């Protein structure tokens, strides 16, 4: 009702033109016993003013203090320009750019996004986005199985240092096609995979190896060695990476002798607000050779009738609307607006700005964890190179401590025991560039006090 422009006069005129008496008559093909069910459980409509009040109250109730949780979603500074421009109606309320001539804004932007992501990952090509990091890993697995023509096994090796939530989503999505994810155990003392562990699969038919970088524990894997093993064994390499880290850490395209085959991950760190878990976006890049196996939209540069540069969706023969049951994926709507924001974020930061952000995150995490491990009852669980997350070990179960500190407004980290009982005392801690000294003081004090009490 609120958004319908029809006046009574309009309605009369329109019904007359159609030749019916009432709007209801237009529904007369619906079997009568199905018609007009009533919606008793839906409340009556409210004005914008009323719902604004409700939402203001609910949003305020949700406000929190400092955040030391990462575990797949990171609180970064998002430049104001990003969302002020992204929410412009022309981006916000456009459809997927099917009519290229009337969508050059979105199309050029996606082309620029693809260029940036390929640049950041040092890969040949990027698609226009997938839903999120977890489903991107699933699509990467499906893609690798398609792309690896030599492999027939449908077996994928996944280190136990990969994000367990991504693994869950991947399992949900790929298991109906009979693919099997096999776990590669990490070294429990270092929190990374010892490349020697892979010997066990030497010579076997493995479609792909997943390499997380940094891994679930924030540690840096020996991506070069893992990649080279895969290459020798005919397995493709799927890099699952944090895009901020890639400003300073060796990107997938440069792993080992020939680089990874597919790079994917969660795009959220690139200008997307935490927003309780979404919308984010999944990114995916690959080698040139595999472009035709990529899922999702891809934009290409071309020319118009007069030879002017223009942009259009391309390689659509991979997609469901053309290929239907033979498509590379069923994905249709993806995360366009998020990519719009990420493109602006990357343009604002540039390579140097992103390096500074990455370095600052690393440094803040280093300083925080040094202070935390100075507290009685806190130690470092895994030592060795890391990006911006580290695992600390408490002298007691972490879950109750997490809740205790949350009640004081401090999100102390992610309790790793949720996925692995052996890590019941462990917290995965992250401190991005947004964390201040005062935030750290608050955390250190709160944790110190919590642990000072008897366990």
């Amino acid at each position, binding site marked *: *009702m609120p958004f319908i*422009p029809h006046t009574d006069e309009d309605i009369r005129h329109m019904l007359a033109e159609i030749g019916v008496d009432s709007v209801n008559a237009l529904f007369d093909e619906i*079997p009568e016993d*199905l018609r007009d069910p009533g*919606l008793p459980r839906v409340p009556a*409509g*409210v004005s914008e003013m009323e*719902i604004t009040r409700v939402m203001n109250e609910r*949003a*305020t109730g*949700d406000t929190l203090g400092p955040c030391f949780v990462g575990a797949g*979603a990171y609180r970064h500074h998002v430049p104001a*320009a990003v969302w002020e*421009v992204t929410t412009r109606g022309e*981006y*916000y*309320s*456009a*459809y*997927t750019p099917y*009519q290229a*001539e*009337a969508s*050059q*804004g*979105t199309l050029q*932007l996606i082309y*620029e996004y693809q260029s*940036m992501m*390929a640049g950041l990952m040092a890969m040949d090509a990027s698609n226009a986005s997938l839903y999120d*990091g*977890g489903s991107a890993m699933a699509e990467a697995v499906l893609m690798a199985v398609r792309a690896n023509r030599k492999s027939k096994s449908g077996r994928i090796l996944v280190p136990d240092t990969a994000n367990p*939530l991504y693994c869950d*989503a991947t399992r949900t999505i790929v298991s*109906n*096609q009979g693919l099997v994810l096999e776990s590669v155990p990490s070294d429990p003392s270092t929190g990374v995979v010892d490349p020697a562990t892979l010997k066990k699969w030497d010579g076997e038919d493995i479609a792909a190896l997943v390499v997380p970088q940094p891994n679930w524990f924030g540690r840096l894997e020996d991506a070069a060695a893992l990649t080279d093993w895969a290459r020798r064994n005919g397995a493709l390499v799927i890099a699952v990476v944090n895009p901020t880290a890639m400003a300073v850490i060796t*990107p997938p395209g440069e792993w080992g002798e020939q680089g990874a085959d597919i790079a994917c991950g969660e795009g959220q760190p690139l200008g997307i607000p935490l927003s*309780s*878990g*979404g919308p984010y976006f999944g990114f995916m890049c690959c080698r040139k050779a595999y472009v035709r196996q990529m899922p999702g939209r891809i934009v*290409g540069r*071309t020319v118009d*009738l007069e030879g002017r*540069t223009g942009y259009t969706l*391309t390689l659509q023969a991979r997609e469901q609307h053309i*290929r*239907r049951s033979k498509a590379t994926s*069923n*994905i249709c709507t993806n995360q*366009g*607006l*998020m990519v719009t924001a990420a493109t602006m974020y990357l343009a604002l*930061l*540039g*390579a140097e700005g992103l*390096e*500074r952000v*990455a370095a600052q995150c690393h440094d803040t995490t280093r300083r925080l964890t040094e202070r935390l491990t100075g507290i009685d009852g806190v130690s470092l669980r895994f030592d060795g190179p890391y990006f911006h997350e580290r695992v600390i070990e408490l002298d007691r179960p972490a879950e109750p401590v997490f*809740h205790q500190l*949350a009640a004081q407004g401090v999100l102390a980290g992610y309790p790793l025991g949720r996925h692995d009982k052996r890590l019941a005392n462990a917290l995965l801690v992250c401190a991005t560039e947004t964390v201040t000294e005062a935030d750290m003081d608050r955390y250190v004090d709160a944790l110190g006090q919590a642990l000072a009490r008897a366990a």
Partner: protein
Amino acid sequence: MTQEELIFDLGRTGRYARAQAPATTAGLSDIPDAFRRKRRATLPEVSELQVVRHYTRLSQKNFSIDTHFYPLGSCTMKYNPRACNSLAMLPGFLDRHPHAPDSTGQGFLACLWELQEMLAEVTGMRSVSLAPMAGAQGEFTGVAMIRAYHVARGDTERTEILVPDAAHGTNPATAVMCGYKVREIPTAADGDVDMEALQEAVGPQTAGIMLTNPSTVGVFERRIQEIAALVHDAGGLLYYDGANLNAILGKARPGDMGFDVIHINLHKTFSTPHGGGGPGAGAVGVGERLLPHIPVPQVGHDDNGYHWRGEDEIPQTIGRLSAFMGNAGVLLRAYVYARMLGSNGMVRVAEFATLNANYLMSRLRAEGFQVWLPERRASHEFIVSLKSEAKELGVTAGDFAKRLLDLGYHAPTAYFPLLVPECFLIEPTETETRDDLEGFVQAMVTIREEARQDKDFVKGAPYNMPVRRLDEVKAAKELDLKWQGDAG
């Protein structure tokens, strides 16, 4: 309109938006060299003003709901209320970490729980999960649940999903992703499913059928209850593709029709923005049979408030579909919209979407355009076939589409569904005025007239867009997918 350079071409080495990055470079020296990036990434090197100016200018090259009538069939391009955006972007919602405990997110969870309830009511289903991130993922979720259902019953011989030939491409693609074979069911001349063919196709190998109702040819499937009985009797389940729910919101419910599972494109019926290609949200609703298999997380409600329900509470779930809670911020937008509509508003959405479609169909027909199923009621959308224009005047649906852009109208969906030649699938939606519909009719008439005078003129369209018609063959053959540096 002038051409816009690429953002990379605007750059100069050493430039970036300095207000946006830490002023000093903190040390990375404890990260061993072997792990360190050697060459800087290829990214634009531009100032903040350059970014704002470039992307503001680029935006002006888009058609959008906020600027144009956009009657893209099956896509429900209606007004996206601005409050839905501003309220979903309140700092309290935006800053919330997905791993923050439920206790600190009661406001957010309350919105989601109420949305679940409202969606269950309007679909007539038992329970709703908001996890899927778009329509296609909703479809995947639904078919995966159908599979889980059969498997849980030990009924493992079902290998086929039935799909009408008019179905959206995501339907067959989804069935395959779930490990099924696809069997196409033809559409009868009256626009409904060909019942004989269906009877023939249904059998012990049938896992289920995917239907859109109103269908993608823009009419209500009248024998839906018969179809449901037929498929259920054979042991199969019914999947409802909710892309067209706008047509019957509050007027009829998929659950009442006999469907076992449904997805709703919240970015269509519940007017969350399309964003130039997402994000969407594809909430799924299930009936009794699939209740145990609903994906996680789902919002639960008890005396202690709201909480996430996980695998512990739903042990037979098909699992999770993303790392967190789907497109949470999109769900907030849908919630705000649903609350502003309320029950009355929802019914009126269906009524006026249908009124606009039938009116536009009548008007185009009166102007001599060939409506595909003239004896049927249009739902919220309908099909015009430009076959005779193509034959007699030599201008195709594609030509009409391009020339419409020149005249300030986004083109309808063209060449879908595949079974109607030279077709336009036209969905005006309820938020457009009669005057705008009339403007579209006049544009169609004008183009036909132009074609009569000079068909090449129409075939050369568009003329007023930022670019003329693009060479798509070149785009696909000489792949140019990224900026190649100053050399490129």
